């Protein structure tokens, strides 16, 4: 009798839990796994089909191999790695400064970093184009003042990297800041007190403790950089093509959903691999302070 009662109690608590989480499951199913499955299905449809339920084929993947798409993947990967590395180098000291000068100065800095987020990405990039272009703000001003200018500084790969670093800065800065908040001041002082040099403290204490934030920031930046295309479009002006541009073209001008889907699947696999390896190193509980 007793055991029966407890079983029914367990069941009722279980089902109420299921009931409560049901909306989340439905949302995840519809909003995440649904589209993902759809993209997978489309990616194995023959060219020009607008239904995901035809006879599966691998022709899109074969086309992708044959038509030099490795170039776009390569550029996207390279740009993502370079901009993530640069973002780390830039954001780490910035986060340290923000953490150290809490109060007015930090608030101003944070505001400066956050404010551009309220302006559309493309408008900001266009602004930089107008700044760096031939007869743009920089070239024009220098010409006016000194009689010579650098000409056009866009239309090249470094300008794309610049745009990516600029656009994704907040996505690195705030996770790193979160990571650094996992480094208590007194722990750093304790290391100093025990005879550690500044470099040792950085290497032995700061980096390991801030690592979850650093990894999350890097991962975030890496994955969104992989999908970047506005920077290549506006600042690069066709000097290279990123994989996201290829996907966009396949879905719009190409009217080739299966091709676009196959490219998207490959991109998801690439990003997913990075996430998989990084997540193995992150203890989320630690990051969220629930340790």
């Amino acid at each position: 009798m007793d055991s029966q009662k407890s079983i029914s109690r367990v069941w009722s608590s279980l089902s109420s839990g299921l009931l409560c989480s049901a909306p989340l499951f439905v949302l995840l199913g519809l909003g995440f796994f649904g589209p993902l499955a759809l993209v997978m299905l489309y990616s194995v449809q023959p060219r020009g089909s607008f239904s995901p339920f035809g006879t599966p084929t691998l022709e899109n993947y074969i086309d992708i191999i044959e038509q030099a798409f490795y170039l776009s993947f390569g550029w996207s990967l390279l740009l993502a790695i370079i901009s993530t590395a640069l973002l780390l180098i830039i954001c780490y000291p910035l986060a340290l400064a923000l953490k150290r000068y809490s109060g007015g100065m930090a608030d101003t800095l944070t505001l400066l970093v956050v404010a551009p987020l309220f302006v559309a990405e493309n408008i900001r990039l266009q602004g930089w184009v107008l700044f760096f272009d031939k007869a743009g703000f920089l070239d024009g001003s220098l010409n006016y003042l000194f009689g010579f200018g650098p000409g056009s500084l866009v239309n090249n790969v470094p300008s794309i990297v610049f745009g990516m670093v600029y656009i994704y800065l907040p996505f690195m800065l705030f996770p790193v800041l979160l990571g650094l908040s996992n480094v208590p001041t007194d722990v750093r002082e304790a290391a100093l007190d025990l005879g550690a040099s500044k470099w040792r403290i950085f290497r032995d204490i700061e980096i390991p403790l801030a690592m979850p934030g650093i990894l999350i920031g890097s991962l975030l930046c890496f994955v969104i950089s992989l999908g970047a295309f506005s920077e290549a479009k506006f600042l690069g002006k066709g000097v290279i093509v990123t994989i996201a541009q290829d996907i966009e073209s396949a879905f719009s001008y190409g009217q080739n959903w299966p091709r676009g889907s196959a490219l998207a699947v490959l991109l998801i696999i690439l990003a997913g691999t990075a996430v998989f390896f990084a997540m193995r190193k992150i203890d989320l509980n630690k990051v969220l302070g629930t340790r």
Partner: protein
Amino acid sequence: MPAEPIMELLGVDKYFGNLAAVNQITLAFEEGEFFTLVGPSGSGKTTLLRMLAGMDKPTRGDILLRGERVNDRPANWRPTCMVFQSLALFPHMTVGGNVEYPLKCRGTPPSERKERAVRCLELSHLPISYYDRPVTTCSGGERQRVALARALAFDPEILFFDEPLSAIDYRLRKTLEKEIKDIQRETKKTFVYITHSLEEAMVMSDRIGVMRDGGLAQIGSPHEIYSNPVNRFVCEFMGEVNSIAVTRGNGGELWCESMGAAITPPSSVETSFRQGTLMIRPENMRLVNPDEGRSTNVFSGELFNEYVLGSRIQYQIRCKNDTFLVERLREAGLPKSGDQVSFGWNPEDSMLFPE
């Protein structure tokens, strides 16, 4: 106690803006002593300790280590080590990693490191099996011991403690107090300890410095400070005390306005004051049998409250507008709440502080 001070402070000030957190402190620590700085929170203890450890610089004055000025020497270049209030263990390391860290910084070879770490763990009563444990899996008391072992592994000339036991429960705190004292005796190192707990200070210290508002109110042995406080602040800080406002008559006699009675002062008393406070510790108060026939400093009042303090008992007695604390051993036949009692004290047990 050896004559040569290991560390000296000469007129040390520390200002934060216009606020003097530490104000004109001159002090010397003797080699091998256990010195405790006590004081209420905000009295400047931690600020002072941080300057000693090298984490802050004094605004004015000098800090000498074996006679050498070390004001500007950073913490990692001082042969001192601190146990933080938060312990500040390295959460991403094992117990062994924490304890060995100072040795690693110094470039000690791994085998030697481990050997020494194990010895320090033993010294702080941690099982060797803890060596490979992540420090985050340790309990509060175990973490205390890890922090202590880590500081010992550094082998400092002076060990600083910044209220490390404040977050520990009473029983464990008692144990650890004794252990810290034992380690100090065993290692013969100079310990400088900060606490706001008088009890801790009394149990462990060779000498105590009482701090107030950034300055040192009194330095002395626990006994000296307890029985001969230099002022009312120290007296009150060192324990519960009965205080009576008194006026000095022309003939040298004391008059207590609130009780409307003359009071006999202790024999050695300054003569140049009009007003002051007479202070008597509760354990120096006595219940007086009316048959005793004594009349000096004997008053009567209503016993209205009693607290049992283990082997002792404390009474609250209301006499006119004043309330007195009287403490004595617990035994049979004692008065109870509601009784009218007589109480008094030996004039030599009272302390008089002129205003």
